[in-house]
């Protein structure tokens, strides 16, 4: 047990920190999300720079263009990026979800075709999993995938797809067979977002911005070679995607929470220094942050030992989302009525936005209810609730 960086990690961290100081475009400092069109315009160039410096695909095998580093390097990378308030690579869905899925289930020609362009941000990916009728119950998806001659034809609707409005490709889970076990009739495809019949509509959310989209598929032709895994074997492929969603995700979350706690501390010092109740709540958030951080380190040790993300990923996501909601709520309480005004880019507007945005945290990427089910059933071994 040694909670300090080893010499190699320390060197990696120091190099990265210096690199970030000089390379984060000024328009992306204090990054608040890709829904800002000005940020988005800088996003591809920024992502390319990350890739050129070797920071994209840190844990990907070297044969696929990655750095082949242990997970701890990805953890350091996410911590430092968060600390610098710099955005991640624009292609997080490709890097964190589609790429590892293709590495796990793809054929050599698919790996050759997709992986390098994910790293370089030449191609941005989005995820077509959730549907209006299928949220937590993912296996109930109804988007139809039919094999007609030498191609698949896709019809249906996907929703809550981040990046879809700028994406080149989509990992799509659809239904190829009805009747029988619902997990068995699923097929996993790579869909070219420029295909005729693909329509993307941004979804305006509680903050007024549009980070997510709806995607409509109308008779979209997908070449047969875009199949990942087997026809009818899509569930297994989708599970790979979702397990990677929570791999080192916790570090990005704890990193973001670290920034939020620091800002909260600054806000409380400025506006509520002597209020004992506020001080107590700030201390609680600080403790929770440390708990989350060290739980991530424990999870990392497990991940490096087994290669498989453990249940701590669900723990981290669950607690981070609730912590972020409490913390942002506390901030707008401290600010008071000023936080009701969205103008300007000072603290009130910042926290107003963060607080509203945080309401999505307990819903996106696995609702808190589903995460508790996962913990109850897969970790504690309790009987299925349905």
């Amino acid at each position, binding site marked *: 047990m*040694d909670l300090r960086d080893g010499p190699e990690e320390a060197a990696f961290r120091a190099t990265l920190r210096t690199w970030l100081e000089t390379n984060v475009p000024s328009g992306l400092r204090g990054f608040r999300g890709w829904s800002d069109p000005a940020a988005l315009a800088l996003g591809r160039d920024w992502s390319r720079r990350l890739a050129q410096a070797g920071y994209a695909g840190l844990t990907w095998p070297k044969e696929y263009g990655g750095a082949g580093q242990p997970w701890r390097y990805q953890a350091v990378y996410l911590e430092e990026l968060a600390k610098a308030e710099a955005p991640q690579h624009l292609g997080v869905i490709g890097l964190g979800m589609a790429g590892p899925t293709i590495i796990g289930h793809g054929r050599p020609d698919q790996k050759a075709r997709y992986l390098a362009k994910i790293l370089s941000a030449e191609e941005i990916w989005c995820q077509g999993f959730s549907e209006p009728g299928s949220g937590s119950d993912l296996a109930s998806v109804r988007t139809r995938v039919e094999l007609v001659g030498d191609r698949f034809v896709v019809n249906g609707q996907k929703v809550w797809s981040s990046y879809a409005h700028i994406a080149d490709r989509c990992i799509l889970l659809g239904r190829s067979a009805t009747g029988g076990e619902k997990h068995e009739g699923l097929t996993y495809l790579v869909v070219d977002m420029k295909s005729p019949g693909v329509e993307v509509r941004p979804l305006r959310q509680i903050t007024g911005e549009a980070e997510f989209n709806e995607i409509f598929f109308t008779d979209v032709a997908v070449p047969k070679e875009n199949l990942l895994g087997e026809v009818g074997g899509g569930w297994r492929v989708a599970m790979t995607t979702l397990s990677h969603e929570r791999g080192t995700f916790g570090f990005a979350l704890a990193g973001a929470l670290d920034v939020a706690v620091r800002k909260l501390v600054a806000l409380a010092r400025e506006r509520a220094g002597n209020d004992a109740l506020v001080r107590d709540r700030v201390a*609680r958030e*600080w*403790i929770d942050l440390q*708990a989350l951080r060290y739980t991530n380190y424990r999870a990392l040790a497990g991940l490096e030992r087994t290669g498989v993300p453990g249940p701590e990923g669900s*723990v981290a996501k669950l607690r981070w989302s609730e912590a972020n909601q409490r913390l942002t709520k506390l901030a707008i309480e401290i600010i008071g009525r000023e936080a009701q005004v969205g103008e300007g880019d000072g603290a009130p507007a910042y926290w107003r936005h963060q607080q509203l945005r945080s309401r999505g945290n307990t819903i996106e990427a696995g609702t808190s209810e589903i995460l508790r089910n996962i*913990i109850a059933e897969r*970790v504690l071994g309790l009987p299925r609730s349905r």
Partner: protein
Amino acid sequence: MDFSFSPEQDQLRVQARSFLEKRYPLARLAEIATSPDGWDRASWPELARLGWTGASIPEAQGGAGLSFVEEAIVFEELGRALYSGPYFSTVALALPALACAPDLLARVASGALTATLASATQASVAAVEARRDRDRWLLRGEADLVPDAGWVDAFVVQARGPDGIGLYLAERHDARPLVRVLDTVDGTRRLGRVTFKDDDARLLAAAPAAATIIAATRRRALTALALEAVGVASQALALGVEHAKSREQFGRPIGAYQAVSHKLADTYVETELARSLAYWAAWCIAEDEGQAELAASAAKTYAAEAAVAACERAIQVHGGMGFTWDHPLHRYYKRALWIESFDRSGAAHRAEIARAILGG
């Protein structure tokens, strides 16, 4: 960066758990907790033989020369088993002061000496005074709410000497000093009132060195209790899960109902977070890291709350059975409450943390 235990440390945990499960199964809890002594005295030589009492004591004094991380593993497992001997008192509360004297360390390592800390608490009516009488020290006064006071061989006493607060050792002989064991809610860790009437003592550390030892003792004690709390919470969770799997109502195990399973999931989450904080604090202490004090405060307040909540949820999941005297859960609950009450309230710890991060 490596937050994992070594194979030897994993081995220690396996050894501790299997020994404690065999010697102190849940079925024996009631018998031990209601016995006149409140603990199984025969256990102490065994703990010494296993190397637990001397885990962090240098090899020159017969210890294993290991660190607080190894002791941390033992604390967690003792909490899980609700072990009732004076390990916490001796190893967490007394050891830092006993380290001033190699002969005392050797006696702790061999199992010949158990001890506790008699210090002023907010509830104490009188502080203890130390005065010099030729070549010896005499203690006078009263220390209240002293853990395991009834059955230890010696007291490390925080007393006011001529230069300020010092640490003294008063060994128990001929029923002196006077000890009154208090009717303590947690029968497995009873508190006592210790009255010194010019009792003989040995100076371990005078001011200002004593202040450093007192601060180190507090960090160790808070972290040890955080680890015990993690053990307590883990056992409460295990009992709750076991019951939720086997108890059927409306034709299904009650664990299939989310109103039940989500409570247990919350306990799991909080226990894991508490564990992370407790291990972090233990590592900080072993490495003498600057953050040790904050880490110990954070771990103790968080883990104590988590353990109390874990027991309360487990009691609720057990229904009427969980409310009975015969079920072991209430003993875990009472230990969790004991831990929560130690040192200062959660709010006071958070106020300390707020001072560190917010200033003022």
